[in-house]
């Protein structure tokens, strides 16, 4: 089975990321030139044929999202590139911006053409402030050569501008409505829905939010005349077409970002691409960032795909794979994860604000070996209440790791004899 492949990463290292001319020398912007000769619906159809699901974590079909955004009639529409990659263990978008910024922007311009938007915003997390100059320089050069601005490439009425906005260290701003609030200069507290941002988002304009990786796929898909992308992936009734960028870290020898075809096994990823585990055996693997679910090492021979991971009780999420060895206990792992969510909860809704805090306190009791059956029941009930009643995805997903860990590692939650400590 092929291990790492080059489709979305094919430009990495092949051009000077500070130079538009250098990007054009390796075929940059040919996709845009081709795209503006095509009806927008056909471009969305290409994305649908390639089966691309949003890479931010929600996995919404991208072609469908573009068609819906295109069909909304409004005087002004907005596209946002969500570069607020805040899930711990996720650093694939950083790699894309560092190695191929022009390709991302080309994808954003094509999105502008298809959706008929006038403005595109890149919301870059503050933690990546060192990438700002790369993007600003690329926007400036594209504007200079009229790939941005008025009547782009001579196409009358194709007016589109790009703006770079900075986040300021708030995980919750990865959520669409919070992100929009933040760009508007406010604190990033999620809005009530409806209205959804696709109808009423940034400055009340219809807004289409896409992840960096999703947008970085666009130019390559438009240029993919021989359908090379569709040859990668899993086959079957439920399938995962193409390739995926994953970020592997934790107790592995060679952490990093890899482009894999869907369908290679978790073992191929951890022991092949990431060089194997450091010294101790694997205790658990978390998929998709801090809000992702966990599995034991029994998952190693499962193929990495949307359908196989779902069957195994986890998910692709942000594409992160965190390997934790036996030097960290399950309860310590969960305490750190829950502390992260306590810190990042915006505090607006009670289930998330209080739930995360109380889960953390209960986990500490388990660590100290002083918990009772009532505490375990309370953990379950708080987690369930958060899932159904939190205002946004943060509170709904914060206890994913806890809930799956309780299923996969029941012994870690056992009521201990008096005076015995674990963790």
């Amino acid at each position, binding site marked *: 089975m092929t291990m790492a492949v080059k489709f979305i990463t094919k430009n990495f290292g092949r051009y000077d990321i500070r130079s538009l001319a250098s990007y054009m020398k390796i075929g940059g912007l040919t996709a845009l030139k081709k795209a503006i000769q095509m009806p927008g619906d056909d471009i969305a159809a290409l994305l649908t044929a390639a089966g691309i699901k949003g890479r931010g974590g929600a996995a919404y079909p991208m072609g469908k999202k573009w068609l819906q955004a295109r069909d909304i009639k409004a005087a002004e529409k907005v596209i946002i590139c969500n570069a607020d*990659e*805040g*899930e*711990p*263990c*996720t*650093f694939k978008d*950083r790699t894309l911006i560092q190695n191929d910024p022009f390709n991302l922007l080309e994808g954003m311009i094509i999105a502008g053409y298809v959706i008929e938007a006038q403005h595109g915003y890149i919301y870059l*997390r*503050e*933690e*990546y*402030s*060192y990438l700002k100059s790369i993007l600003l320089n690329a926007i400036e050069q594209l504007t200079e050569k009229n790939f941005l601005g008025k009547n782009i490439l001579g196409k009358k009425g194709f007016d589109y501008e790009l703006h770079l*906005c*900075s*986040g*300021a*260290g*708030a*995980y919750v701003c990865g959520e669409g409505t919070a992100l929009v609030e*933040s*760009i*508007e*200069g*406010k*604190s*990033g*507290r999620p809005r009530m829905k409806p209205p959804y941002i696709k109808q009423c988002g940034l*400055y009340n304009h219809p807004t289409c939010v896409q992840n960096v990786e999703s947008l970085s796929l666009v130019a390559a898909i438009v240029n993919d005349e021989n359908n090379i992308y569709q040859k990668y992936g899993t086959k079957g009734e439920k399938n995962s077409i193409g390739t995926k960028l994953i*970020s592997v*870290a*934790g*107790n592995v020898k060679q*952490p*990093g*970002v890899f482009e894999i075809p869907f369908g290679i096994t978790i073992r191929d990823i951890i022991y092949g691409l990431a060089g194997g585990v450091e010294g101790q055996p694997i205790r658990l693997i*978390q998929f998709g960032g*801090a809000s992702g679910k966990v599995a034991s090492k029994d998952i190693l021979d499962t193929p990495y795909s949307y359908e196989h991971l779902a069957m195994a009780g986890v998910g692709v999420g942000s594409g992160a794979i*965190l390997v*934790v*060895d036996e*030097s*960290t206990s399950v309860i*310590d*792992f969960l305490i*750190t*994860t829950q*502390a*992260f969510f306590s*810190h*990042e909860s*915006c505090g607006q809704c009670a289930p998330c604000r209080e739930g995360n805090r109380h889960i953390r306190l209960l986990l500490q009791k388990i660590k100290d070996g002083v918990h009772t059956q009532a505490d375990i029941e309370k953990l379950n009930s708080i987690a369930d209440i958060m899932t159904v009643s939190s205002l946004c995805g943060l509170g709904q997903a914060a206890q994913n790791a806890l809930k799956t860990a309780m299923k996969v590692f029941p012994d870690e939650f056992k009521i201990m004899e008096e005076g015995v400590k674990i963790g």
Partner: protein
Amino acid sequence: MYCLLIYQENLESAEFQTGFEGAVFMSENILERVLTRELARQIDGILSNYQYDASRLIGILLDIQQIIPKQYIPEEIAYYLAQKLNMKITNIYDCITFYGSIYSKARAEYPLQICNSIVCKVKKGERLAMDLKKILKVEINQATADGKFIIEMVPCFGACDVAPAVKVNGKVYGNLNNEEKIKAMLQELV
């Protein structure tokens, strides 16, 4: 009483006697005066980069924070912005207190930000924090006496491939898994 004296001293200082625009409107309760004429000029420059657009407040606050010694937004500056952007001071503070990367208290010339999320934890990031505390002889969130360093614990900043890592003024130092590497980083900074 001591604070009051500083306040009066500041009021009498040459900078404030000139009565330039920023000084007049502010709450009389602000005790820490930092807004010199030069700083006001620099802030105005940043504001005009953003076309005095209040909806771009986050970028404005981040840029201003970088030019203030010890990298924070002093209360006096917050009031100055409220006036210049025609905003309510509560809206300014809503952002200052909400966002993790905007600070309302003085920090240091080199804030050493250690990731406290799960990847750095499994890569023994706690030892990194302990080593730094030992070398600098300070606690977390406590600045060194010379105002050069402060150790801050922050959530994941996406340097998991080089964990355990420290971020200092926008630059990442990775694989800090022994004391020599930590000392080399500190040496490079000063």
